[in-house]
């Protein structure tokens, strides 16, 4: 077995400010969680880009298949009752 590998691939998610969503920043290579965290910090947050980091082994990411887009992301235009404008509010109703 060739033991000289480039280690495992991890995906990095960064929260830029508290309260903000975690956004995918890119990926890094590391052999374990601690190294993954350190490498993510060094690679993606050298200028205060983040206040919090998630790292996830790439092999555990489940991605949708673009071929299924039509089915998965159908805009459901026939289900207009999902939108607030569908409903009739009584005249004079406020703050709703």
């Amino acid at each position, binding site marked *: 077995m060739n033991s*000289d590998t480039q280690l495992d691939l991890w995906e990095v998610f960064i929260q830029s400010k508290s309260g903000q969503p975690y956004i995918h920043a*890119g990926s*890094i*290579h590391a*052999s*374990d969680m601690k190294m993954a965290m350190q490498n993510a910090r060094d*690679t993606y947050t050298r*200028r205060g880009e983040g206040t919090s980091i998630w790292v996830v082994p790439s092999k555990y990411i489940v991605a949708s298949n673009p071929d299924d887009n039509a089915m998965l992301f159908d805009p459901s235009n026939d289900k207009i009752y999902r939108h607030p404008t569908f409903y009739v509010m009584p005249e004079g109703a406020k703050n709703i």
Partner: protein
Amino acid sequence: MHNEHSDSNFQSRIDKGEHIEARDYMPENYRKHLIRQMSQHAHSEVIGMQPEGNWITRAPSLRSKQILLAKIQDEGGHGLYLYSAAETLGISRQELIQSLHSGKAKYSNIFNYPALNWADIGAIGWLVDGAAIVNQVSLQRTSYGPYSRAMVRICKEESFHQRQGYEIMAKMMKGTKDQQAMAQDAMNRWWWPSLMMFGPHDTDSPRSSDAVKWRIKRETNDELRQKFIDKTIPQAELIGLKVPDDKIKLDEKTGHYKIGEINWEEFQRVVAGHGPCNKQRLDHHKLYFNQGAWVREAAEAYKQKHLKQEMQTI
């Protein structure tokens, strides 16, 4: 029937300005072109650390040493962004590095020139990073999503690189006669190779048309080179540096500078491996890659051991 896996559907997505993501259908040549371009780009960031790294221990002040270290660390980071973006195309990091070591993959020719003295650090930051920025700003709008996102991140970091280089040049031009001569000498040596960084003229660039059609490249070599020339000549004049080209003329009608002939023979010679530092750059990369093998092995062994322990505690 509408076929999502057809080249015509792919091209119409491109024409609409959509981005292509890793799992989307793409023609094999689009993938190949991207792997070649992105890996060359990644290798350039990493190999580019060498000429500057040569001056870390000899930087003239603590301030300049800190700046240079931070800049070189950024370049290593740029390499990593680009390697991981290239990996989304289904090529492994091992394969990418093997191709560099075998000579199959290239890196930017500019890094086959030596950094002879401190003025070169100024010239590299100002001219080499300056040329790279023009190219990279344009690539922020490239059609492949992961490449485009890596470019956005890189561009945010690049402007400090160019400014620190220009600051060095400006300081030297305000210094002694000797310092001015050093700055001018560095300018003379780096000007033409920087113009060559944009690649051959559009008329001599066989792969360019596909790259433009697929919107991998958003502007042609000559368009980008002209942007760099127009930005840089006034910067040189401002600090009293002479551009080493007697034919330079501002075309009043177009507002663009015209330049003399680029020496493409020299370019081809350096690309073919006969530049001053080609062998040194690759040998250095191989040496440290091989010396790092035990670290990767140890990390791998540590992981295996801890995986076992984790399994036992479950």
